[in-house]
C-alpha cells in the first residue's frame, strides 16, 4: 500500500479544508481444523480507506476499498457530501493536531511470509498429538500483516506496520475437553506442540465430569478466563464515552478503591510485551494509561472527541476507527493486568475448597453499571479440595459483577500470557485467584 499517494489523491480532491484519511491494508491467512483435519483454509488481501470530511463542526464519513484514483476522488466527495447535509454538532471540536510519535517495531518477516504449508505443518502437529491421545482437535492458526496510515489536514502523518500470529485449539475426548491459545507478533510465539500438550492435559484431567451445585465459590482462573474479565470491563466502560454517558462501571467509582490492592490494569500501546501499536486511528500517540492502580479506579481512556467534551482533557490516543454507524468511543486495545507474585500451583495449594476454571464462554453484560456478566465455564472446570485438584465437574453458568470479582482478588499470578482479544488488540493476563464468584446454574 502506498499510503502517502492514497492520502494525497484524497486530500487534493476534497472540497473540505479539514480532512482526515485513514487507510489499512491487511494480508491475512487462516488455517482452520476440526476432527483432526484441515477443513477451511483461507487468505484475504484487502484495503480499507476511511475519509472524515469536516465542514465547521459537521463530520461526514465515507469508506471504501477501491484504491483507483477516480474512486479515491469520489470517496473524498462522498465524505464531503455527507458532512454538507448535516446541522452543526457543537460537541465536535475539530480534528486533532500533530503530536510526536515514537515508532515501535512489531513486524516479523516470518509471520508476513508464512506459507499455507507452514501453517499446515503447525496445525498438523496439533492434530497428530490429539489423534495419538485418542482425541479430536479443532482450532485455527492465523498469520496476518497489516499496514496502517493516518493523515490529516492539521499535519498528522503516521504510519505503522505490524504482524500478528495466533493459534488456538480445543481438544476433545470422550466426555471432556481442553483449550490452549497463543498470540504474538512474532511467529515464534506460536508453539503448536506445547499448545496441544496443554489442551490434552486438560482433557485427561476432565474425564467423567460430575454434576455440581451452583453457588458462591472461590475460583482460580487460567489466563483465558482472566482475559474475559479485562475484555468485558473494557467493553462495559473503560472508554470515556461510556463514562460521559453514565453507563460505565467507572461512574461513581473514579478515585475509589473498588478492587483488591493487587489489581493494576494498564493500557500500554507501546510495550513490546503486548501487540504494540504506537498511535490510534486518529494518528495520536497512545499513552500508557493506568485505568485501575492498586485497586483504585483511576481514569478511562480518551479520543479527541471525548477529550473535547471535558475541560482541560487531552486525547490519550485511544480512538477507534470512525464509522458512519456512529461513535463506538475510545477503547483500550493493549491491556495489561500487571502480574503478581503467586504461581498457579501456589494458588491451588492455598485453596481449601474452590474451583479451577480454564475459560469463560459466551459472556454477555447483564447490568453495565456494575459490569454484571453472565456466561459459561468451558473446556475444563475442576473442584479443588485441600490444596489439590480433586475432580472435574460439568460446565457452570455464572452471573457475576466483574468489578466485585476483582474486589475479592486474593492472588495475581506471576506469569502473564498474551492473548488476542475478541474486541481487537490483545490482552496480557496472568492467572488470578478470586475469593468469591457466583455460579447460577449448571448444564448437562
Amino acid at each position: 500500500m502506498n499510503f502517502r499517494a492514497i492520502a494525497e489523491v484524497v486530500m487534493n480532491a476534497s472540497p473540505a479544508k479539514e480532512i482526515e484519511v485513514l487507510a489499512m491494508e491487511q494480508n491475512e491467512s487462516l488455517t482452520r481444523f476440526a476432527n483432526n483435519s484441515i477443513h477451511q483454509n483461507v487468505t484475504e488481501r484487502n484495503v480499507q480507506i476511511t475519509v472524515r470530511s469536516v465542514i465547521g463542526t459537521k463530520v461526514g464519513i465515507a469508506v471504501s476499498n477501491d484504491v483507483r484514483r477516480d474512486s479515491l476522488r469520489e470517496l473524498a466527495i462522498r465524505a464531503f457530501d455527507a458532512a454538507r447535509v448535516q446541522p452543526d454538532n457543537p460537541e465536535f471540536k475539530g480534528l486533532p493536531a500533530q503530536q510526536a510519535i515514537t515508532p515501535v517495531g512489531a513486524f516479523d518477516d516470518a509471520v508476513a511470509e508464512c506459507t499455507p504449508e507452514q501453517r499446515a505443518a503447525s496445525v498438523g502437529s496439533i492434530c497428530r498429538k490429539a489423534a495419538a491421545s485418542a482425541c479430536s482437535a479443532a482450532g485455527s492458526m492465523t498469520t496476518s500483516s497489516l499496514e496502517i496510515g493516518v493523515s490529516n489536514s492539521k499535519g498528522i502523518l503516521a504510519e505503522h506496520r505490524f504482524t500478528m500470529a495466533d493459534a488456538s485449539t480445543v481438544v476433545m475426548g470422550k466426555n471432556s475437553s481442553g483449550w490452549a491459545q497463543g498470540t504474538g507478533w512474532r511467529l515464534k510465539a506460536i508453539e503448536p506442540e506445547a499448545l496441544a500438550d496443554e489442551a490434552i492435559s486438560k482433557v485427561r484431567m476432565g474425564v467423567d465430569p460430575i454434576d455440581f451445585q451452583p453457588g458462591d465459590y472461590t475460583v482460580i482462573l487460567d489466563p483465558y478466563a482472566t482475559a474475559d474479565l479485562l475484555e468485558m470491563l473494557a467493553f462495559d466502560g473503560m472508554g470515556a464515552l461510556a463514562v460521559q454517558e453514565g453507563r460505565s462501571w467507572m461512574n461513581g467509582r473514579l478515585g475509589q478503591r473498588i478492587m483488591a490492592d493487587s489489581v493494576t490494569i494498564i493500557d500500554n500501546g507501546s510495550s513490546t510485551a503486548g501487540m504494540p501499536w504506537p498511535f490510534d486511528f486518529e494518528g495520536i500517540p497512545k499513552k500508557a494509561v493506568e485505568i485501575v492502580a492498586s485497586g483504585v479506579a483511576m481514569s478511562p481512556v480518551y479520543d479527541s472527541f471525548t477529550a473535547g467534551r471535558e475541560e482541560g482533557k487531552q486525547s490519550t490516543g485511544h480512538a477507534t476507527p470512525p464509522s458512519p454507524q456512529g461513535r463506538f468511543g475510545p477503547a483500550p486495545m493493549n491491556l495489561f493486568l500487571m502480574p503478581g507474585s503467586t504461581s498457579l500451583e501456589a494458588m491451588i495449594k492455598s485453596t481449601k475448597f474452590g474451583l479451577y476454571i480454564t475459560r469463560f464462554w459466551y459472556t454477555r453484560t447483564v447490568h453495565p453499571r456494575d459490569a454484571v456478566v453472565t456466561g459459561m465455564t468451558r473446556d475444563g472446570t475442576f473442584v479443588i479440595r485441600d490444596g489439590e485438584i480433586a475432580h472435574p465437574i460439568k460446565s457452570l453458568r455464572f452471573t457475576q459483577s466483574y468489578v466485585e470479582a476483582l474486589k475479592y482478588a486474593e492472588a495475581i499470578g506471576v506469569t502473564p500470557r498474551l492473548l488476542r482479544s475478541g474486541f481487537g488488540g490483545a490482552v496480557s493476563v496472568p492467572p488470578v485467584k478470586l475469593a468469591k464468584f457466583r455460579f447460577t446454574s449448571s448444564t448437562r
Partner: protein
Amino acid sequence: MKDFTSHAMNIAMAEGARYADIRILDHREQVVSVKNGNVDGVGDQYSQGFGIRVLVDNSWGFASSAYLEKAEIERVTSLAVKIAQASARVPGEPVDLGKPVTSVGKYTTPIQIDPFSISLEQKLDLMFRADEIMRRNPGVKVSEGNVISVRNHKFFSNTEEAFLEQVIYESGGAIAATAISDTEVQIRSHPNSFRYQGTGGWEYVTGADFTGNAERVAEEAVRLLSADVCPSKETTLILDSSQLALQIHESCGHPTELDRVFGTEAAFAGRSFLTTEKRNNFRYGSDIVNLTADSVRQTGLGTFGWDDEGVPATSTPLVRNGEFVGYLMSRETASRLGLESNGCMRADGWNRIPLIRMTNVSVEAGTWNFEDMIADTDDGIFMETNRSWSIDDMRLNFQFGTEVGYEIKGGKRGSLLKNCTYAGITPDFWKSCDAIANARHWRLWGTPNCGKGEPMQTMGTGHGAAPARFRNVKVGVFR
C-alpha cells in the same frame, strides 16, 4: 462479468481443482445515526472484491482479493489451489458435494422504494424528529436512533455451469432511550434492540413508525428506574415475539446447523446437542411447536434467490409437532446424511468462505389470541425485548435478559418489572410451551449481527415468531 468468472473457473480446473466457485460482490451501505440531538455518524461504506473456493481431491482452499483485475484473478485462483494442496497435508474425510448445481438466473429483492433514492437529509430529518420526541422527557439521558440501507450486488459461478446474479436490498433502523440513575442503567428500544432490519426498501423503515413510538419508549425507560425488580422464582413466562425470535435463533437455529453437529465449529462457535441420531427420533418441544427454515418469506434477512453455493431458496421443517426432523445444511454436509442441501450456505462478504447459516428460522403461528393468553394466565411474567443473551457451547443452558417485564396476576397485566432474566435448558423449555399466539400476532424479525466462523463473519438472519407461553421457568436469576 462472465468472462471473469469463466476465466477463474478454467484456471482452477487446469491447475487441478475438481470443483471451484467464484463470488464477485459489490457491497454498498449507507447509515445515518443521531444521538442526543446531534449527528453521531453519517456516511457510507463501499466494499468490492471476489473470492474463489476450490476443492482439490478432498481438500478445500479459498483466496480473495479486493483488486478486481484479470491478473489478480489469475493470481488468486492459483493461490486458492495451492492453499487447497496445503490443506491436503492434514487430510479429512472424502468430500461428496452431491448432485451438480447448475442454477442460472437473476434475483432482485422486491422493493417499493429504493432506499438509496431517499436523501441523507430525509433520513436525518426522520431520525432527528424521533430523537427530539424522546429528549422531551427530562429523564432520558441518552436518546439515539439510526437507519441503514444496504445493497449487495453479487455474481456467482461454479465449474458446474451455474451463473447467478443477485441484488439484495436491506433496510432497517431503530430508536432507543436510556435512563440512568446513580446506580443503574435502563434502556427501551423500538422496534427491537438489535435494529429492525429486513430485506426490503425504504417502506420497511417507514413501517417501523419511529416517531409514533418515541414518546412511549422514553417514558418506559424512565419508568423502569423506579419499577420493581423481577422476582426470583419459578413461574409461567410469556415472551413477546421479538424476544422469542432471539430464543429461536440461539436455541433452535444454531443447534440445527449441521456443520456444528459435525464438529467444524467446535473451537469457536461451539457444537450442538442435536446429534444426527436424534433426527426423527427426539422430542425437541411440545406438540404445538413447529419450527421452519425458509429463504422465501418476503422481508426476511435470510431471504434470497439462491444461497452462496447456488442452491435455490426453499422452505424446510426443522421441528414438526415437537419432533426434531431437520437441519440447516450445505451440499457437503447434506450428502453425509444422504440428503440434498436446503440452501443454507452464506458468506458475509467477498472475502469470506460460505458457512452454514440460518436463513429465516421461525416458529409457526399457533391458535391463541394474545389477549386470551394473558387472560388465561393466573400467575406469571410477560417479558419483552432482548437486553442480554448467553447460551452454552452445546446450545442447552441459556440465560436471557429483557428490557422490560410485566407481572401477570389473575389474567391481567400488572405492574412493570425491571432487570428481568430467565434461564433454562433448551428442550425442557420448548417442551413446556403450552400456547403460541395466532398469525395476527406473528411477525418476521431480523437479527443483523449473528457471529460465526473464523475469521469472524457477521450475518443477518430472519426469525418469525408470535408471543408464546412457557410453564415452570426460572426467572430473576440475578437480582
